[in-house]
């Protein structure tokens, strides 16, 4: 058995030896330097993942891989470093749930010495200094993260999105990796939190530290995130017009890579928004139990921000309906957002307090459908929201409900309305709701998306042949 000292010496030797591969590559953009970077990535992969007895990369080694992703000069080195970072994250998760506790309840294991791409060390609002235009190298802090998001807004807004650019790919992959890292840290913490109600676990999560940082303006950050989702979706829709100019192989390679990166960035953004909403929910629970302190600060839940945007900005609403609900396929939160939106217009006039708007126990999809079936209350709703919007919201809510019940078959779901109400009842009520809308307005056109919803409901109801 090697002693601890010996092992440390071997690790140091391995680190120096591996990093030496990069020595001559130093920021050069030659084929040789590029080869060296690829060789380095392969060496790290072989030593830390594929070897017979792999050992995790040291912090310096991981940092160097991260650097290649951030300043990589070739598509190959960017793609390879991105893949390696994610593989390492999977192999050596910095936080995970363990069931080793004697009582049998899950405990959180945090690997303190694990390398992290983040550095939220000093959380002082940057004063005086001009905000940097580029994300500074080194660990990402909250302002760096916001810069990254703003960079993505640019990428998403790009009118000619086939302006092929390695920088755009770097940004998108960096973002995806960052989201993976945030999620990898948050999910086990939230899982143990649900079991133990120990808010400290989540308070120390990277996501909570990031969102609570005074270096960023949280609401702007969230709005930027929403606009990225819209932007990507719009341009992804009219893609595929073959680009005849991209004649050379390298351009084709870049074009294919950009397209793919945009798709996966959209998915990553959805993941980010979902974990933020999960965090909000847990925080709300902790607040109600009085576990939070003033130091935790007040942060508007993301769902509220989305709803505000929808209420005050009609353009946003139609955009949201057309794009977000299409993009945002995570059914649980999709349903939640729609139900909250309805509840704004259907809830009994009651005193609205910050604490109380977190619970939507009284609003269920079936409840909304019942209100629409009733002619007086549905007339009230139509007055406030147009029939078109109602149709779309109901159809989308139905889709989310269906997805959840499909997931239910796979046993992923936890208990809630989806289990409580049989699908056939929902389908019946959906049809009746549309009939009642039709009764109120004979000339009402049923929108194509709503037709599809009705078709689906009718087919589910029809007796099996």
């Amino acid at each position, binding site marked *: 058995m090697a002693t601890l000292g010996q092992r440390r010496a071997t690790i140091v030797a391995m680190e120096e030896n591996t990093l030496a591969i990069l020595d001559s590559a130093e920021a050069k953009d030659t084929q040789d330097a590029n080869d060296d970077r690829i060789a380095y990535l392969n060496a790290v992969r072989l030593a830390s993942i594929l070897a017979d007895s792999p050992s995790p990369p040291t912090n310096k080694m991981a940092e160097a891989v991260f650097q290649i992703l951030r300043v990589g000069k070739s598509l190959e080195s960017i793609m390879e470093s991105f893949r390696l970072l994610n593989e390492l994250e999977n192999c050596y998760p910095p936080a995970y749930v363990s069931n080793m506790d004697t009582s049998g309840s899950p405990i959180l294991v945090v690997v303190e010495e694990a390398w992290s791409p983040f550095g939220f060390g000093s959380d002082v609002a940057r004063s005086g200094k001009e905000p940097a235009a580029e994300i500074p190298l080194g660990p990402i802090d909250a302002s760096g993260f916001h810069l990254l998001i703003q960079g993505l807004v640019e990428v998403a807004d790009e009118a000619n999105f086939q302006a092929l650019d390695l920088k755009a790919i770097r940004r998108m992959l960096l973002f995806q990796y960052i989201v993976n890292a945030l999620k990898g840290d948050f999910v086990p913490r939230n899982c143990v939190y649900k079991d133990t109600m120990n808010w400290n676990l989540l308070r120390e999560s990277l996501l909570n530290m990031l969102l609570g940082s005074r270096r960023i303006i949280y609401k702007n950050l969230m709005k930027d995130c929403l606009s990225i989702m819209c932007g990507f979706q719009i341009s992804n829709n009219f893609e595929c017009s073959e680009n005849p100019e991209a004649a050379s192989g390298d351009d084709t390679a870049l074009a294919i890579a950009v397209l793919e*990166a945009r798709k996966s960035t959209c998915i990553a953004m959805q993941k980010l928004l979902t974990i933020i909403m999960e965090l909000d929910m847990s925080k709300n629970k902790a607040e109600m139990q009085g576990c939070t302190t003033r130091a935790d600060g007040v942060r508007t839940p993301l769902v509220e921000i989305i709803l505000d945007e929808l209420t005050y900005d009609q353009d946003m609403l139609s955009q949201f309906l057309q794009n977000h609900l299409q993009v945002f396929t995570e059914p649980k939160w999709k349903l939640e957002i729609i139900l909250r939106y309805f509840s704004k217009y259907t809830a009994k006039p009651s005193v609205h307090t910050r604490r109380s708007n977190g619970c939507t126990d009284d609003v269920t999809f079936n409840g909304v459908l019942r209100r629409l079936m009733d002619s007086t209350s549905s007339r009230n709703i139509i007055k406030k929201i147009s029939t078109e919007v109602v149709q779309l919201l109901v159809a989308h809510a139905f889709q989310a409900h269906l997805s959840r019940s499909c997931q239910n078959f796979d046993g992923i779901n936890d208990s809630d309305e989806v289990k409580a109400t049989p699908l056939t009842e929902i389908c019946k009520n959906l049809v009746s709701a549309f009939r009642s809308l039709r009764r109120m307005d004979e000339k009402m056109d049923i929108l194509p998306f709503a037709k599809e919803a009705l078709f689906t409901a009718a087919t589910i109801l029809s007796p099996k042949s």
Partner: protein
Amino acid sequence: MDGPLDFEDEDALFSPPVVPKKRKKIIGLDDLLTDFYREKSKCLERESKREKAPQKDNSDDDEDDKEALVCKAVDECQKQMTELIGEEEISMWGIRLFGDQKTPPPLIFPELRSSLLLQSFMENELSTLVELPIETGEVFLESLLLNGWLSKLIISCGHLEKSIASWTFNMILYSSREELRASACDLWHLVLSSKAEVASVPIKIDWFPGYSELRRALETYGFLFSFSSTTESVDTNSACQKPSQNIKAWVEISAACCQARSKKPIFSTSEAEELVQFIICLFLDRQLMGLQLLFYECTQSVINYFTDEEWTISSKRIAKSLAFRVPMDLNCLRAVECISGVGPRSKGLRSAVAYEVLCNCLNCKAANEEEILSLLISINVKDRSCDLFKMYIYLVLTENWLMSTTLLEEKPVLYEMWSVYLRNCSCQITSTDMRSYAPKVRNKASYLLQGTIK
């Protein structure tokens, strides 16, 4: 050529075992050294001349002429040198995998109109509310698919009928619309991955895709099933054929089919073996680099498709046929290095492929491990005619073959031989060696040598 002199320390460290060899070949080494120094001084001369060149503008013409002469001479020397070495300085992996695309089959499915799904709805009283003309049934189904209703409907009803199954599958393979391909892929993925034992209604699937369809699609995309030499490799400026847009969906559906083995074994063992090879080949096309994450996932799915018994035989067969398929240049290294993943299967396959390619390179039949290593040791890297590019390939292949197995621990002989081989490569190539792959071989070997010290 490259700056760091760290390696001199290693040379000192490892000189003892090499001493006897040095003694034997002492004359040859000296000759080589003088050769190298001669060449090096020529190079230095040329470089210094070049540096001076801009300043020369306003000086004597005589000097210019002289310089031009010398430069010409040096250039010629340089040319001869590269010819001697026979290597291009810059070589990259990359193969053109796709040739001319064929016309895809027409995507017309008249039988869709008579599908149960549409028919049963027509009898429904609701059809008056939705006003769905049967003529536009196909268009309507398309938007059901696009908006994600169709998959939910199929799972909720527990039935995927034949017409819809083959229609969506053909969309994946041949549709020119990305959203349609993606939605159809999602549908198949959901249907194939939903677990029958948990579902209240197990999904009845009337029609399964088969390997022949997948293979035919590859043919339509213009996939070159046998690509031979490096002559067709990366030629970035020629008007090259673009790979089909459908390749992404093709890879995704292949992966989904593999994941559904518990439902139905869609591929036979030999078909799955071929599939692994095709997907590994896809890594070799530089144009598809942006999709490599998908390829990795797909490789994993196909590798895990095999049962344990099948895998022991199949992995060897895959390795053997891949070794024949890939060209023996940087492409074979790329092929080996793209097989990654944590599981024992991918580690094993990586090692096996590296071993088979190495056997092919060395042209030895029925060799055992020791024979291969002794063959490698017997190569004299100091010999000018020794192809260091090939040495580099051997070295990386050997590394990949040995490092992800327990071979080195099980067989001390192999471990010893591996160390000797590494020492040969790192100590016998000097840092002044001008051959193009000299620093690469030397650095790689000394890096690995450091790793072997325990």
